[in-house]
């Protein structure tokens, strides 16, 4: 049971006052009578016939006390959920479509207000909140604090990403098996009480932007526009390169179809297309894609040169920096450090160890082996994706005995070992590429690309809004993330920078030391198609059993009983 207005319970303090007034009421009137003989007989007879007679006065007091209690409780508006649920979990859709303004001021604002109204009617039950984004987010664990839940709802903002209502409902139900789940979205979902906001939506949207390189430091930007309206639309398209207008196009799009238009623009880090269709979902009118001038990972070569490996790295990551004399103090500032035939203790960072066995990793060299062949390799590790090393011959190797990490390929001895610890990632090749035929195999550049990606992470990506990523921190502890919502300072945790979810479409740039990583975040493709086919369902309230009316009735009944008892005495007075 809960109370809608708990402050009404303060009226219960009137009960002692009633009792006090009862005891302080005027005393009995003294009347001198000729004799008590007949009175004693009458009283004795009444008590004999009605044993409760002597308690009638106390009954009057009890009725008064109950009446005050009923009035106080009715003012407190007690209620009990009849849904049988002890907990209530509210799922609020924060997906892209909730930004549509076909419902004023927007679907999201309307849904949030309805959710707040629902919360306002809840007392005494635990409330949890789940934001239905690309992946569900528990923004408020189950709590009895209504203010916390309200604050959590008010702090929510719609994202530019998709929403997974089913997953959100599953998460909500996992919070409490007995929970009643209330979903506020633009579409109904099974297994929960759905409140739907918004109906059919006609939207013209950009569904894709692709930049492809052209000679002469230029690139071709292809923009795909989809027409979700029932009429043919001429859609002006503006193409920007790194926020600078680069081209203007126009696309004639048939109803329900999509059309691509292309423009040749100067090469850049990213390209953006914009349209102004004046529809109800402006967020789909903008699309950001990576350009062709992308940043490459910064690689440091430490040790004597190796022409095979250097050629492969040059193809993957460009020309590496070189350090003839090992200086581990600066290694952490590079995305990847190649340590060739150097025995040293490794500071935090990302390393390719070639014929080198560091002193501070759980691995030790066992000597020299000649003529080994890769017989087994991992089929699941990302380092060996699209790579088959089996059968590769190694003429000379320095076999190692690892105590941790993972041996990814081996023959007589381990030939590829990967190790990951907090702040440090390392890939060990216990042989020189010049001592094997590996460098001659077509998988070698792929292997190097996988190695660089695994060690340093991608330096640029195009992702859907709502995605979350983390990147290796290397030897760095701090980084700055620049995005559409401004800049944020990040600290490395467990050797990685965990970036907040990309809730806004746009360009995100992570500056970590001298390295830069770029993400082009776009709205979910296909989200503009749009339309909630389900009719709008009025917001629901938690079904509750309001006891206030019963208590008011009881209060009135008690007043009538009080009046009846009192008038019984009054009738005696008129006799």
């Amino acid at each position: 049971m809960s109370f809608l207005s708990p402050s009404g319970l303060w009226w219960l303090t009137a009960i002692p006052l009633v009792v006090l007034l009862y005891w302080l009421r005027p005393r009995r009137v003294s009347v001198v009578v000729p004799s008590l003989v007949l009175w004693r007989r009458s009283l004795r007879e009444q008590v004999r016939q009605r044993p409760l007679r002597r308690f009638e006065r106390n009954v009057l007091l009890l009725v008064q006390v109950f009446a005050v209690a009923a009035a106080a409780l009715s003012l407190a508006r007690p209620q009990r959920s009849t849904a049988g649920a002890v907990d209530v979990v509210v799922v609020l859709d924060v997906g892209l479509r909730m930004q549509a303004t076909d419902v004023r001021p927007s679907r999201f604002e309307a849904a949030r207000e309805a959710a707040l109204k629902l919360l306002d009617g809840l007392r005494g039950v635990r409330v949890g909140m789940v934001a239905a984004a690309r992946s569900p987010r528990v923004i408020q664990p189950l709590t009895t604090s209504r203010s916390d839940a309200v604050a959590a709802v008010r702090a929510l903002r719609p994202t530019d990403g998709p929403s997974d209502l089913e997953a959100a409902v599953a998460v909500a139900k996992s919070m409490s098996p007995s929970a009643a789940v209330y979903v506020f979205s633009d579409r109904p979902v099974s297994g929960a009480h759905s409140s739907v906001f918004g109906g059919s939506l006609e939207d013209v949207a950009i569904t894709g932007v692709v930049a492809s390189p052209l000679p002469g430091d230029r690139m071709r930007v292809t923009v795909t526009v989809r027409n979700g309206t029932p009429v043919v639309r001429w859609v002006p398209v503006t193409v920007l390169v790194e926020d600078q207008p680069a081209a203007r196009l126009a696309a004639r799009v048939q109803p329900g179809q999509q059309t691509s238009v292309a423009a040749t623009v100067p090469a850049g880090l990213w390209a953006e297309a914009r349209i102004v269709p004046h529809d109800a979902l402006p967020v789909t009118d903008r699309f950001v894609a990576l350009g062709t001038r992308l940043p490459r990972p910064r690689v440091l070569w430490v040790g004597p040169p190796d022409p095979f490996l250097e050629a492969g790295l040059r193809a993957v990551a460009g020309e590496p920096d070189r350090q003839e004399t090992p200086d581990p103090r600066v290694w952490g500032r590079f995305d990847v450090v190649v340590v060739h035939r150097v025995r040293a203790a490794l500071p935090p960072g990302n390393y390719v160890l070639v014929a080198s066995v560091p002193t501070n990793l759980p691995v030790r060299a066992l000597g020299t082996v000649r003529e080994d062949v890769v017989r087994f390799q991992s089929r699941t590790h990302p380092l060996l994706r699209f790579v088959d090393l089996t059968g590769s011959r190694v003429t000379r190797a320095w076999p190692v005995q690892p105590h941790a990490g993972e041996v990814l390929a081996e023959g007589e001895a381990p030939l590829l070992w990967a190790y990951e610890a907090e702040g440090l990632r390392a890939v060990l090749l216990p042989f020189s590429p010049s001592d094997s035929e590996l460098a001659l195999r077509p998988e070698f550049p792929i292997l190097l690309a996988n190695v660089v990606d695994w060690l340093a992470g991608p330096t640029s990506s195009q992702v859907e809004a709502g995605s979350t990523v983390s990147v290796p921190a290397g030897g760095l502890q701090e980084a700055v993330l620049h995005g559409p919502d401004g800049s944020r300072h990040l600290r490395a945790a467990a050797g990685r920078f965990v970036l907040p979810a990309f809730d806004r479409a746009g360009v995100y740039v992570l500056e970590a030391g001298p390295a830069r990583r770029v993400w082009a975040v776009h709205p979910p493709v296909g989200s503009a198609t749009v339309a909630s086919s389900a009719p709008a369902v009025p917001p629901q309230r938690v079904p509750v059993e309001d006891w206030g009316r019963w208590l008011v009735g009881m209060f009135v009944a008690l007043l009538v009983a009080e009046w009846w008892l009192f008038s019984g005495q009054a009738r005696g007075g008129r006799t």
Partner: protein
Amino acid sequence: MLLEPAFLEKLERLRLVARRKTRGPAGERRSRTLGRGLEFSDHRAYQVGDDWRYVDWNIYARLDRLFVKLFEEEEDRDVHLLVDASASMRFGQPAKLDYAKRLAAALGYVALANGDRVGAAALHGSAVRALPPRRGRAHAHHLFRFLEAEQAHGPTELEEAAKRFAPRRRGLVVAVSDLLDPRGFQAFLLRLRHEGLEVFVVHLLAEEDLAPPVTGELRLVDVETGESLEVTVDSRMVAEFVAQRDAFLESVRAFCARHGMAYVRATTALPVEDLVLRYLKQAGWVT
């Protein structure tokens, strides 16, 4: 002045009627018995043991049979007026005691006017203040003064008072009381009867005795004992009181009837003149 002259004049024409023969000495009250009287009444046949002096020799001479003459004997009767003067008798409008004093004065005057010896006693709890019986109209003055001086006080202890009231001669006793004795009225009346008195009971009640004075949350205080009783006087209580009152009145009436006592119930609302001249006549107390 207890009684008005006009009322006294009416009382002089009345006589108290005894319901059984008084075995007192001869007096002014006539009794149809043999001899000792002065006024001839009748003849009857001679019976063995009759006094020869009352044989009517003239009839013997004519009829040759013996007849004796009957004379109306003058009875000498005591009339005792018992007035309950306990504190409860101050209730009523007029007060029960005032009413009782006037009634006793009236009946005493009737008795004195008919030659009876009239005495009076006021009962204050177990104490008795008495006026010895005297004959003669002049005694009416003493009787009236005695009654006028009475004030209501003290508890009601009728039986104890009856024990202290010890008449030297038998006669007739008129008890005027509300009979509201916590210990009961029966022993009181039986005591009078055992004294050989013919008992006349005037059950005098005031309006306060017949109905509750007020209703509500009351603390009833006994005027005589000071005891209190907390009651809620509502309609049910009033009904119960009325039932108990009626039962009490009926018990008194039935008791008197069962023991051959004359009983009259009166309230102070009834004028004394009406009670005496009308209702007591109807009841056969006076003629």
